[in-house]
């Protein structure tokens, strides 16, 4: 077994997000700052998408808090390699909790795309799926093809899967979802039926 899985992918990131978020139902979605938030917005803005525009490294932990609070719903964290690397300890924290209703999909372009395409650790030496497995995640996988992504879509909504999805590092046009955090939080809670304080 090789632990190094540092090659670039070829998948189009928007097509990946559109597939993962197709007909999402009541899936609770948290997106990491930068391109993952743009991808999820481009796939269709919805009240149960919580986009980060900052708080780098926090997406997976927000997902954990949600999943603990709402065992009746499934939570999908959609983030990038740079965002997950900054919160790499969260893979251990989530692994220790081993919740049945929380999945993480890392859309991995092996680069810090937002800041000038500097190579990230996943392009140098780090295999995040292997890290997650070593942190106790029972199901980890790496997808390289659209068929593999399509097979992941239903699993990411009902199983605790940690998936790395290898995408092409190409730039795509910006799509800007709402960035008013209070608006995003208020509409998210309202969509869950939580009354205002």
């Amino acid at each position, binding site marked *: 077994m090789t632990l190094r899985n540092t090659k670039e992918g070829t998948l189009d990131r928007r097509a990946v997000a559109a597939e993962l978020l197709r007909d999402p139902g009541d899936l609770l979605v948290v997106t990491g700052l930068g391109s993952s938030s743009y991808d999820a917005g481009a796939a269709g803005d919805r009240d149960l998408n919580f986009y980060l525009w900052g708080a780098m490294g926090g997406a997976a932990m927000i997902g954990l*808090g949600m999943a603990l609070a709402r065992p009746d719903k499934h939570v999908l964290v959609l983030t990038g390699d740079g965002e997950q690397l900054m919160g790499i300890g969260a893979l251990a*924290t989530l692994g220790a909790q081993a919740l049945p209703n929380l999945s993480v999909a890392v859309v991995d372009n092996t680069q810090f795309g937002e800041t000038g395409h500097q190579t990230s650790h996943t392009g140098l030496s780090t295999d995040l799926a292997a890290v997650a497995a070593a942190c106790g995640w029972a199901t980890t996988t790496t997808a390289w093809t659209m068929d593999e992504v399509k097979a992941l879509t239903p699993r990411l909504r009902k199983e605790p899967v940690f998936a790395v999805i290898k995408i092409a590092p190409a730039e795509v046009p910006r799509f800007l979802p709402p960035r008013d955090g209070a608006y995003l939080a208020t509409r998210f809670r309202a969509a869950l039926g939580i009354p205002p304080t």
Partner: protein
Amino acid sequence: MSNLTRQPSTWQEGVYAALKAANIKQLAYVPDAGHAHLIEAAHADPEMKAVVLTTEEEGVALSAGAWLGGQRCCMLMQSSGVGNTINMLSLPQNCRLPFFTLITMRGEWGEFNPWQVPMGSATETVLKAMGVQVRRADSPDDVADIVAYSASLAFDSLIPVAVLLSQRLIGAKVFVK
């Protein structure tokens, strides 16, 4: 507590009772000896989810997710961990979310370890710089009340609030007996 009429016999029990009364359901922590009672009580409580963290900014993000899902979280950390939370504190501010944390102080009263002093000295300044309301408990007589009213402040006003548990209150760590 199973017997609701029993008065807490220690201030630590009083603090845990205050967290329960505030309807806290998730207790996140980076351990500290001063929080040991709360951590043990949370693990023993089937109605409380105790979440051990690798670093303190995780707890700020967890608290946000808990609130978005309709639950209340409290994070336990020590003063040295406050430095790790700074940028993540933009999350409750931007999203107008409550954040509630109890912080055991180091480096201020009988400290043996000089490495605790810089962050301990800067803890309150750093929290206030990031817009966190800071309260301080020095006496075992009022710490449970301070925790109770600070929780109300955080969750009723949707703002970040920290309670500093002074080193004089918790007792300095003994390195050499």
